[in-house]
């Protein structure tokens, strides 16, 4: 008797639903082993994480606060990944979006009617993010420059530039760091504590992208490029043009995430704008299998883990890094589990000829 992997002959819907669930369960088991080894009770810890994340109004509000940028950057990254453009730069695009939105709200909209400041700041954030992704896209499309390097490097440029602004150039009088607060007229309204209307940008964009992928000619072309670029070229689809257009949109969505962080949450450019949402977004995009609706779900899950992880620090007195490790634990079974979307595991008895022949018939 031996175990063999057999390639599936068709796509199984059941598997694509069950695999993430089972992977999640497996990762909980792995995490429990790790917690036990480090001397914590896994049940108590998981319980504390769960309660901390969604067990109170405060928890849910904090989860939503983190869900918003994760949905947006997750959408941004999955859009680029659909074209096999490895945009690792959502973090930098988000940061530039935050910079431009703050700049617009604080300085560049002086003398304009108050009601224009919010939309102009959002627009500025989108444009800044689009430029930040557009540069690597143009380099890739016309000069074949590897985008993983350019997008990653531009993250550091953006982050250091934003630091220069809030520590030096734009620093408010009398503070060590951070700009002045932006005028209240440009704030996004809040609900349930710190959660804000940025959430609806994320939800609406997710549904819109889903519809674009499914119903438009452009979405059809993106799918072809992503699935087989050689065939796309042969079918007359311009890859260079699509890479640039898609990445401008992808960057704009990450830029929007940054703008929303400023306009909805911090109300100024300050430390803590770049906390790694753009990197977590890569995990989210993969776990959601690049599906925009899946991104909503996974972003919420990851946000809960982040908030829950913060809670166990306080309640269980575990080191902060345990939360991060548990996140990593989640990713490994998820990615490993994706194997079972394409393969099935079967038991085989080589000595049992009758059973053998029957499986062959079924296959």
């Amino acid at each position, binding site marked *: 008797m031996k175990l063999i992997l057999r*390639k599936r*002959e*068709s796509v199984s819907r059941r598997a694509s639903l069950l695999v993430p669930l089972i992977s999640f369960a497996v990762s909980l088991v792995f995490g429990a082993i790790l917690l036990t080894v480090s001397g914590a009770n896994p049940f108590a810890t998981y319980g504390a994480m769960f309660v901390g994340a969604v067990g109170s109004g405060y928890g849910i509000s904090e989860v939503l606060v983190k869900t918003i940028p994760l949905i947006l950057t997750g959408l941004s990254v999955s859009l680029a990944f659909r074209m096999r453009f490895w945009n690792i730069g959502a973090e930098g695009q988000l940061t530039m979006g935050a910079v431009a939105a703050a700049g617009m709200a604080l300085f560049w909209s002086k003398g304009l009617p108050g009601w224009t400041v919010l939309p102009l700041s959002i627009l500025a954030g989108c444009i800044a993010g689009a430029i930040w992704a557009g540069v690597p896209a143009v380099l890739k499309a016309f000069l074949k420059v590897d985008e993983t390097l350019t997008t990653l490097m531009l993250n550091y440029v953006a982050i250091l530039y934003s630091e220069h602004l809030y520590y030096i150039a734009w620093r408010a009088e009398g503070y060590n760091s951070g700009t002045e607060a932006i005028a209240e007229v440009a704030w996004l309204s809040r609900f349930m504590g710190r959660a804000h209307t940025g959430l609806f940008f994320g939800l609406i964009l997710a549904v819109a992208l889903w519809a674009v992928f499914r119903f438009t000619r452009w979405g059809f072309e993106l799918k072809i490029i992503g*699935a087989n670029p*050689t065939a796309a070229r*042969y*079918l007359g689809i311009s890859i260079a043009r699509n890479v640039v257009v898609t990445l401008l949109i992808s960057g704009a969505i990450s830029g929007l995430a940054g703008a929303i962080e400023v306009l909805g949450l911090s109300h100024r450019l300050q430390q803590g704008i770049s906390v790694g949402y753009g990197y977590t977004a890569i995990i989210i995009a993969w776990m959601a299998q690049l599906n925009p609706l899946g991104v909503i779900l996974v972003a919420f899950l990851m946000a809960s883990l982040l908030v829950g992880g913060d809670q166990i620090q306080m309640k269980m007195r575990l080191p902060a890094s345990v939360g991060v490790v548990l996140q990593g634990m989640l990713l490994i079974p998820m990615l490993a589990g994706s194997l079972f979307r394409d393969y099935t595991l079967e038991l085989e008895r080589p000595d049992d000829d009758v059973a053998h022949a029957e499986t062959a018939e079924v296959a």
Partner: protein
Amino acid sequence: MTDREAELDTQVPVLEMRSITKRFPGVLANDCVDLDLYPGEVLALLGENGAGKSTLMNVLAGLYRPDAGEVWVSGAQVEIHSPRDAASLGIGMVHQNFKLVSTMTVAQNIILGLPDLAFVPKMSEVSDRIRELSDRYNLAVDPDAYIWQLSVGEQQRVEILKQIYRGATILILDEPTAVLTPQEADELGRVLAVMQSEGKSMIFITHKMGEVMAFSNRVCVLQHGRMVATKRTADTNPRELARLMVGREVLFRLDKAEMTPGDVVLELRDVRAVNEKGLPALRGLSLIVQQGEILGIAGVAGNGQQELAEVVTGLRETKGGSVEINLRDVTHCSPLEIIRSGVSHIPADRMRTGTVGDMAVADNIAMKGYRSSPLAQRGLLNRQRILDFARAMIDLFQIATPTPQTYVKFLSGGNIQKTILAREIDACASLLVAVYPSRGLDVGATEAVRQRLIEQRDAERAVLLISEDLEELMSVADRIGVMYEGRLMGILPAAEADVETLGMMMAGAG
């Protein structure tokens, strides 16, 4: 000869395969196959593509493990877990795609991977041994030449020498003549004869009857994974073999009405282009294709045929000369502009270029029509119409697919090709470029493909057919051009072409 046959009967087989079964997803590639091989014989393994020939031989070469069955070598049961196990049993395989390192010399390639190699091998001894072997077996190769300097035929000799050097007594050749000119194939036949006289045994895989008759002592016929017949070559004939291979009588003739060619659709003038390595691939090629005719292009693979198709369809940059379609200069147009001028293209690589494996059959059929009404309006796809269109095409082209939503990668090669045909022929307005359209297809699908090409011609369209199958060119094309090193050696009316003349031209003579 009869003595020799009697001798074969009484000998112990050097190799026996018993009840070999090998399964792949959805395919029983080998179904209880028995095969035996005697010392000093040449055994032809005949079958259509997909019949399981390569699978069976890869089991012997240690690349696949059978799901069931036994292998016996010289009367002892053996387990072959790896190519190294196979080599230690004296089994060597010459693959269709040569496994050579192009930046290394012949001698280096031959000793590469030998298990008992000295830390610093004495290359002069290796070269001497190679020279000795190449004299003995008539395999002229310079041991110090680099692989990239060698022609395809010479590379094949290196592969054979490699196996002899390693002491192979059982040599497997996987479609050895597929890449050779007819003359080079004859040469190979002489090499096989010498090896045979030295007592070596050979299995060669082929689907060409002529080679079976010319080179082999016995022939085994595989059909859909089953061994359907084993015959002495002297006791059979090509017609019988074809019937055994296909499972029915084969029509070698296609009905073709007389056509008078009309306006010029495609005209190339002194076209130049380079290949991926930047080396000249087309060196001043001129031709015309008219309405209502099929221009066939013959040639040994790698003489610029692929580049010709890509230049015409806008996929490859033209470095000189001009390309005109319907009297309009399209020399530097994009693939999309060429498509819009009415050109359809059946590409050589149907999996990598012609289809998107991870998308539905229906989507693949719609991949030309999705740009405009009725399949799309104002940038939005009409999913229902795409499905209806796909259903109609699936019926019309007899594509065997469980549903229109099935991913293309789950279809057989023939049905993938029919999917491409459906899309390209439906979109074809003036010119159809078909590259190796029937390669690797079974006889039924091949007939269907060829019939479609003739239909396009009869519908007053122009067809440029690039093929390596001379039978196909002679039965389908109206005129046949032969390409050699990026130029046309000449164009003959198909009625006047014969294999010898074309073969000479393919080798660059005549």
